[in-house]
C-alpha cells in the first residue's frame, strides 16, 4: 500500500500530502446538475405557480404540455421551486419567447442560502412583464456542487 509506506517515511509522507493537495486544486471537476426538459410540466401538475394580472396558463410547445402567456398588459408569474440541497449555487431560468426571439432568461441566481441548512429549500421565482407579450415554454434549475476536499491526519494505532 503506497499510502502506508508513505506514512512510515517522513519525506514520503510530505510528498504524498503534496500530491493530495494538488489533486484538490485541479479536480475533481465541479458537478453540475440541471432539471430535465419539461420541468415546467411538473410545476404545472403540482400547481406550483401563482398568476397575477394578464398572466394565463396555456398549452406549451405541444398540445399535451404546459405553458404560460404574460401580456399584453402588466402581469407576472411566480414559480415555487425546490432547490436541491446538493447545490452550492444555483440559477433558475425560464425559456421565454418575446417578439419572435426565444432565449433562456435568468429569474434568479446565487449561492444557496445558508438557511437551507443542508435540506432542500423552496424559493419563489418571478417573471414579470410591463406590457409586452411573453410566452413561457419551460423552466430550468441549474446548480453546481463544488467538490469538497480535506486532508486529515490519520489516527495513530495503539
Amino acid at each position: 500500500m503506497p499510502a502506508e509506506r508513505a506514512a512510515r517515511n517522513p519525506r514520503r509522507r510530505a510528498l504524498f500530502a503534496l500530491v493530495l493537495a494538488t489533486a484538490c486544486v485541479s479536480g475533481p471537476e465541479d458537478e453540475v446538475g440541471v432539471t430535465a426538459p419539461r420541468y415546467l410540466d411538473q410545476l404545472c401538475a403540482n400547481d406550483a405557480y401563482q398568476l397575477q394580472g394578464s398572466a394565463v396558463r396555456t398549452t406549451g410547445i405541444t398540445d399535451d404540455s404546459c405553458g404560460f402567456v404574460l401580456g399584453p398588459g402588466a402581469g407576472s408569474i411566480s414559480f415555487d421551486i425546490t432547490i436541491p440541497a446538493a447545490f452550492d449555487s444555483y440559477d433558475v431560468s425560464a425559456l421565454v419567447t418575446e417578439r419572435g426571439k426565444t432565449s433562456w432568461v435568468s429569474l434568479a441566481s446565487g449561492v444557496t442560502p445558508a438557511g437551507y441548512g443542508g435540506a432542500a429549500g423552496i424559493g419563489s421565482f418571478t417573471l414579470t412583464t410591463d406590457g409586452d407579450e411573453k410566452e413561457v415554454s419551460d423552466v430550468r434549475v441549474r446548480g453546481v456542487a463544488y467538490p469538497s476536499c480535506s486532508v486529515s491526519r490519520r489516527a495513530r494505532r495503539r
Partner: protein
Amino acid sequence: MRLLLVWVGAGSLLAWSGHAVAADADASPDAPPPPEKPSRVWLARAGVGLGFATQSQQEALVSAESFGGPRFHVSAEVARMLTERVGLGVLGMYGWREAGVDVGSDHTTTLSQPPVYAEQFAGAALEVPIVFDLGPRRSAEVSLVPFAGLGSGGVGLYRSGPWHGGPLFGGSLQIFAPRAYLGAALGAYFLPLPPPGRTGGHNDLGSYFFSLIVGLDAG
C-alpha cells in the same frame, strides 16, 4: 416438355419476325421514322433515409430544450416515363423522430427523467423525375426528382398529438444502378405546419436527408 419446346420455338419465331419487320422498316427510305420510345417505361423506387431537421421556430424551441436527434423516413415512388428523360409519378412518405435529451456536457446530470419529443408525419406527392444516363450501356442513372403534394403530421411529449395538414414539397438527387437495383439519394423535403401548442412556434417536419434506395426500371 414438348409444350415448353413449342412455347420457346414460337417465341423465337415471333422475335425473329419482329426483327425482320423492323429491318424491313429501316430499309425503306420512304417510311416515316419510328416515334421516340422511352427505353424504360416505369421506374419504381423504395427508400429509407435519415437527416437533419429543417429550421423552424418550433425547432429552435426544441433545441433550446436540449431535445435532439435525426429525423427518419421511408418512401415509395412509382413513375411512368413520358419521354426518354422526363417522367411523372407519385410518391408516398412516412417520417418520424423520437428526440431524446442531449445535455451534452461532461459532469452534467439531469435531475429527473425527461419525456421524449415524438414526431410523425405521412404525405403523398406528385413527382417529375428527370433522368440522365451515366456510363456505357446505362450502368447508372442520375435523377433529379422534384415533388409537391400534401402531408399531415403531429408532435407530442406524453402522447401522440393531434395531426395538422400542410403542403409537402422538396426534391432529391438520386444515383441508381439499374442492374444492381440499388441507389442512394440526397435531398430535402419540407412540411410546414401550424404551432403544435400555444407557446410553440411555426413547425416544419422536413429534413435535409440521405437515403438508400432499392428499385427497378421496367418496360
